[in-house]
Every structure is written in structure tokens, then in C-alpha cells.
């Protein structure tokens, strides 16, 4: 996983560029596990996030600030407080949680309507693909209505956060779609 963030420095070498990545999604989607994968940390001991986690990863002058905000209903109203200056929105979906696909779809739709996130590129991680009951990424994309998005670039990436499968590919897309700041 060490190489994961090195991709960033290869693709762009803007010395003091700081990036703000916002990780959102319902509780138990796998946000913290993805965050830990990005920071090459152990993912075996993840606990539910009360509040938020932030990790900054330095990579050859590139500073990546990843904000992982808890997904439980009680703290979703606070998501808004973290929207400002977001460079990339990463939305994580538990593809095996069929019952809450509608809920997650509604939450995402709400995010995409927010002014502060206008035009911000969206990466959706279709997580937990290792589980037999997981829907494939393409179906999740349809359910989330991603094809209807017109005002931003987006990508859906199938992944297994617990072993890192697909996480790297998602980040490669992120690197290619870093918006140029005014």
C-alpha cells in the first residue's frame, strides 16, 4: 500500500499543493477502513467513528488531508460543516447492505445538491465486493443514479477496503481529476 500515495507525487509535483478529500457514506460503509488503507495502517481494529478522523499524508510536497466523518444518522447533520474547500468527494457504499441502498442513495443525492460541493469530482467506492451478497458496482451506479449527474466528473470503483483491492485504482482516478484551484 506504500505505493498508493506515491502515485500522487508522480502525477503532479506542485510543491505546496494541499488536497482536501472528504470521505462520506452511511455508518458501516467502510470509510475508516479506506482511510487506514490510504495511510498504510492496520485495518483489523477499526471502531465506529464518533465524530471524525483526519489523516494527513505527506508525499513529496503533496499534502493529502483526508477527512473521514462518522456516518451514523445522529451526526449526518454535521457533514455540512466539512464541505468547504473540498477538492474531491469520496462516497463509500456497502454493496451488501441491500436494505439501506435507498437510504444511501438519498444521502448522496442530498450531498450533490449542496452549493458548497458544486462541481466537486465524485468518486464512489462500491465496497465489500468480497461478500457473496454484494451488488456489482454497475448495479450500484444505476441505483444511485450516477448516470444522471451532469455537473461534475464522477467515477465508481469496486473495492474491498479490508484487503485494499480496488482502493488504489480509485486513488489513481482521484489524481487524474484533481481540480486546478483558482
Amino acid at each position, binding site marked *: 500500500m506504500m505505493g498508493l500515495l506515491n502515485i500522487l507525487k508522480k502525477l503532479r509535483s506542485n510543491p505546496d499543493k494541499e488536497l482536501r478529500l472528504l470521505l462520506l457514506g452511511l455508518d*458501516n460503509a467502510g470509510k475508516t477502513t479506506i482511510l487506514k488503507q490510504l495511510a498504510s495502517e492496520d485495518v483489523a481494529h477499526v471502531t*465506529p467513528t464518533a*465524530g471524525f478522523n483526519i489523516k494527513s499524508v505527506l508525499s513529496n510536497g503533496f499534502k493529502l488531508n483526508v477527512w473521514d466523518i462518522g456516518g*451514523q444518522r*445522529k451526526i449526518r447533520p454535521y457533514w455540512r460543516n466539512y464541505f468547504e474547500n473540498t477538492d474531491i468527494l469520496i462516497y463509500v457504499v456497502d454493496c451488501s447492505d441491500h436494505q439501506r441502498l435507498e437510504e444511501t442513495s438519498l444521502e448522496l443525492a442530498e450531498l450533490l445538491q449542496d452549493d458548497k460541493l458544486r462541481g466537486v469530482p465524485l468518486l464512489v467506492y462500491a465496497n465489500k465486493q468480497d461478500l457473496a451478497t454484494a451488488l456489482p458496482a454497475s448495479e450500484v451506479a444505476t441505483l444511485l443514479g450516477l448516470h444522471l449527474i451532469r455537473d461534475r466528473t464522477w467515477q465508481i470503483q469496486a473495492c474491498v477496503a479490508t484487503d485494499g483491492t480496488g482502493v488504489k485504482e480509485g486513488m489513481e482516478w482521484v489524481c487524474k481529476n484533481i481540480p486546478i484551484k483558482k
Partner: protein
Amino acid sequence: MVFFNLWSVFQWYLRPFIKWFLRKTTRLCELQRICYGDKIGAQRSCNIEKSLMLSRTRDVQEVVAFLDAVVKERRFIPTLFSEILDPTVNIIIRVKKINKKLHDSFSPLFRQCLIQIWSYRQLVDEVEELRCTHFDSNDPIHEKKLLRLWGLLMPDRPLEARITKDWQDIGFQGDDPKTDFRGMGLLGLENLLYFATEYRQASNHVLSHSLHPKYGYTFAIVGINLTSMAYYLLKDGSAKTYMFNLKQHLPSINLFHKFYCYLFYEFDKMWIESKPENMMEFSIIFKKFENAVRTELADPASVFRINIEVDTI
């Protein structure tokens, strides 16, 4: 890095000379000097452990390996202590050429240290096993425990259904607590249960704080995060200060639960005193709390008062 390298060089080459010199001048081996000189509890037991682990004497290394093997089989229990420890202590006395008659106080002191050190190691294994056991909703024992937790925390309100948003009232994230145990497994549930069972008043007091309209927080989720803190403090050895300084108790799973209850009670106090704006301040206050606990544990003389008392008004 340089300092660290110098230190290991020192450990490897100079330690034997210093030990030899002290042995000649004091006529005591290092283990004796620790047993007689260091304060009983964390200071003494930790130094004995360090000394044993650094030893290059074959017999000592074998003793350590033997005791570790006993722990792996979970056989390090009080009824077997004399069977396990009597020969062990005798080997050390022979290897270190300690005059038994002249130093009859050494054996019991040293033995007590061994008991603490390897009880702790066995506890680490037990806790790890509980942590690795995932909460399984198909297991009736797990389910029963979960429902018992509700009954203890909300005695006047029967649970409407197994899957219900009521769980959020005791601070789980959603309708079904099972996913919230995650990386802490059954350990998180056992910790919460112990707190609710053994410290009824205190846990109710803390739960009522968590329901405060302004300073409320998610009781169970915070609890699981505290399980994680207690787990790491145990694993990296920081919790030795707490466990070795208690005269009446040996490191055991119940003592781990007590340690957790202490952390929960103290965290709650700090949270309320901090007057947080909202739940999003959790990470900051939690970190601050962890640092405070670590500072306290770093002092081998620290004794944690475990008797949680609630003012009843």
C-alpha cells in the same frame, strides 16, 4: 536514531560489565537488587521482567520460554502456581547462585513478580481472543448478552423488536448493533456489560450524561472506542502500571473490565467538563483523554483509584 543505536550497543556490550561490577561490590545479582531495592508493584515487576528478557543465560531464557508456553495453554492459574513456579524459582536461585538461607526473603518477592508478569501475559492472550471473536447474531449466547445489555441500561423500557431504532437511545449507530462491534468484537460487548452489571449506578449516571440534550454523546459507540483504548494500553504494556500496583488483584479479565470502567467514568467526566459544542469534538477530547491517561500510566508510582462513586442526590 543515533541515540537509539548507541543505546542498543550499550545494552549489549556494557550491561554485562556493569552487572558484573555491581555483583562483585554488592554481592547481589541483578534480580536481587531489583527485589530489594525497587518499590513493590509496577516498578519492581517491570524491572524484573526487563532483566529476565535481556538475560543471555540459557537457563533463564528457558524459564521464560517455559512460562510463556504455560500461558499459551492458559494454565497460569492460582491453583497451579506452586506446581509451575516452585521449580522455576529454584532454577533461578541455582543459576544466580543465591544463598537460600541468607536470602530467604528473595524467593517470595521474586515469585510475586513472576505471578504478576505472566498473569498479565495470559490476560493479553485472553483479551485478544475475545477481540477476535466477532459478534454473531446467529449465536444465541451473543444475542442473549446483547439483550441483557439493553435490560440493564433501560430496565423500565422493554425493547420493541430485535431490530429497532431504539438501540440508538443507548448510543448504537443504527437499528442493529451487530455491525458496531467491528474491530473490537465480543470484547466491546463484554466491557459494556461489565460496566452495566458491576457498576450499575455509575453506568446509569454516565448513560444519563450521554443523553444530555446539549452535551450528549453516543454511549455505546464511545464505549467501544474506549474498549479500543483499553486494548491498546494493555497490549503495549502501559496498563502494567495500573495492574501491578493493585495489591489485592492479579491481572485478570475482570481487572481489565474494571480498568475499562474506570476509563469510561473518567472520560465521561472530562467530556462533560469540556462542555463540547457537539459530538464532532469527540476525536479531540478523546485524544486529550488518552494523553492524560498515558501520562499517568507512565509514572510507575501511579495508583488508580478504582472505586467509582456516584453522588446520589
